[in-house]
């Protein structure tokens, strides 16, 4: 998680620099979403904050991803609105890292160490802007992937050697379709 906060701080500082310039107005996109994949359907929340320049939007996003494991993605998001109209399709791409936010389970006897992995998403969406305002309703559908590693170590004393180290490494790769509804201001 230290890496998460370090990256977040750097990216927020960069976005703050950009906001200071009037040609790059600040925009904030708040999404509630659903992720659907082999494991099932899960809930997600995202907040992307950044700047808009003409038809482009660049922001730093984070949120909660409850697909299989609770994770916190931290990503850069770039979007392109197809037209400058109030109503417009847009495409967006997200790339960053996933950070595990483990849920406490006292019945688990092993120690888990989580290594952040890739977070990537791509989507197409539609923006419905309010008249004379920058506020807009957003909806998008697309693909989302999250990867990470888990290293499990089960503490034990080796009394009847040889005992292989009880260490297992799990590589997780989750591929989901996502649907998001959001609000931009």
């Amino acid at each position, binding site marked *: 998680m230290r890496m998460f906060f370090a990256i977040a701080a750097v990216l927020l500082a960069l976005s703050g620099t950009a906001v200071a310039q009037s040609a790059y107005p600040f925009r904030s996109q708040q999404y509630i979403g*659903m*992720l*659907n*994949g*082999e*494991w099932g*359907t899960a809930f997600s929340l995202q907040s992307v904050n950044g700047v808009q320049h003409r038809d482009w939007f660049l922001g730093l996003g984070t949120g909660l991803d409850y697909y*299989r494991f609770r994770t916190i993605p931290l990503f850069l998001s770039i979007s392109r609105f197809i037209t400058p109209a109030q109503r417009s399709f847009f495409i967006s791409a997200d790339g960053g890292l996933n950070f595990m936010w483990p849920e406490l389970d006292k019945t*688990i006897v092993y120690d888990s160490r989580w290594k952040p992995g890739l977070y990537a998403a791509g989507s197409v969406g*539609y923006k419905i802007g309010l008249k004379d305002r920058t506020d807009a309703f957003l*909806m998008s*559908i*697309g693909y989302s992937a999250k990867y990470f590693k888990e290293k499990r170590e*089960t503490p*034990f*004393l*080796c*009394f*009847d*050697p*040889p*005992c*292989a*180290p*009880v*260490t*297992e*490494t*799990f*590589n*997780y*790769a*989750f*591929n*989901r*379709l996502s*649907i998001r509804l959001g609000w931009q201001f």
Partner: protein
Amino acid sequence: MIFLVVSSRGSAVSDLMQLFRGIVRKNNSSYNACAVFFVNVKNTSMRKILFTTRLFLAMILMVMLGGCLKDSVTRTYSIMRPVYKSRAEALAEIKSGPPQPLKTPGKIFLRGNYLFINEVDKGVHVFDNSDPSSLRGVAFIAIPGNVDIGLKDHILYADMYRDLTAVDIFDPLQVKLLKTVRDVFAPRDFGIGITDIGNDDMIISGWVMKDTTVPVGAETDNWTCPNCITLHSDFAGARVGSPAPGIAGSMARFSIVNDYLYAIQSSTVGVYHVADPLNIEAMSAPWAGLGIETVYPFKNKLFIGSQTGMFIYNLNNPAAPQKEGSFFHASACDPVIADDAFAFVTLRTGNFCAGVNNELNVINIENISLPQLVKTYPMTNPHGLAKDGDLLFICDGKDGLKIYNASNPNDLRLIKHLTGMEAYDAIAWNKRLILSATNGIYQYDYSDPQRIRLLSTIAVSK
């Protein structure tokens, strides 16, 4: 899963049908999971409705298609594979060689000015302990499958997997194998389907570790690794009954009292007459119960530690020990030591050790036939223990070594707590403490227990 595709244009429907047919031909599982229905709407009055609902339909379609996406979870773990050699070859290799670095310390045994340290499954290190502040390696005796050691006179008794070997170590640099007795000890089960039972002409001489990666389902929470169930017997020393010849720790699978060797077997205590190492005789094997683990001799008694309790045998007839008393406790691993009036039993949890207790039980054994619990003291993960006079030494696993004043067993008082090592077993003798830990062997001077002084260490070689 069912998909519904609706369009106002026949060509679009036709294209989509071709596309989906191509997909299902390539991936049969997708065909099983997804059924797609195509509806061609020609009524132009529907176009406005389709225009406004197309996005939502597409969203629903995409979400439903999510079931066709596959997650990938792989698990990488290490497994041990045995390397075999012939028994004759292994026996021929039981001889002394130059000192070797300590890698996996096991049992410790102090005899005169010599310290014997088991190198788990490899053999026995011999150290000259004339100067406790400067241990000197003398020799290494290679004995495959060795985890227990004991000495009588100049004969080293050591297990070689299931077998008992008697080795003359009068000259540690020129040891001689005198005798091998087959099937003295319980078979070892290493888990993953590997035991030392089977081909009697072959024994396991080593192991190789191999990483294996396998795909697993997304549900991995309840998976347990095969190596987690390989744990069987205990670590650390054996104690010889006669005080002069030698002294060891509390967690032994066999022990020598005068001319008899008592070996913990699956559920019995095997008794062997070892007065003549060239003619070792099996005498009896009294039933002691399931889950027996350790044997500790004190005077003319044997204290057997089991996962369910402590059993006391008298040695009035050393060839056929008789059970005199027992004390049952919650299921756990439990080495035991004793003095004239009290037995001290540590209970611990662990993968192999069932139960939930990590504690020290003090048991009054003045009435041998009816041991009574005096008091229980909470511990972290206690293993071996040792006692010298009023001082009680508890190896509390990762919590290090705890030294108590045990003059009043109802009120043990912690005198000193040494941390920084994962302590397993100890020998306390003549104001010197020899401590076995995962990272090495420590030797202390406890003449003043408040100011216990480190004399020397033998570090584990990485």
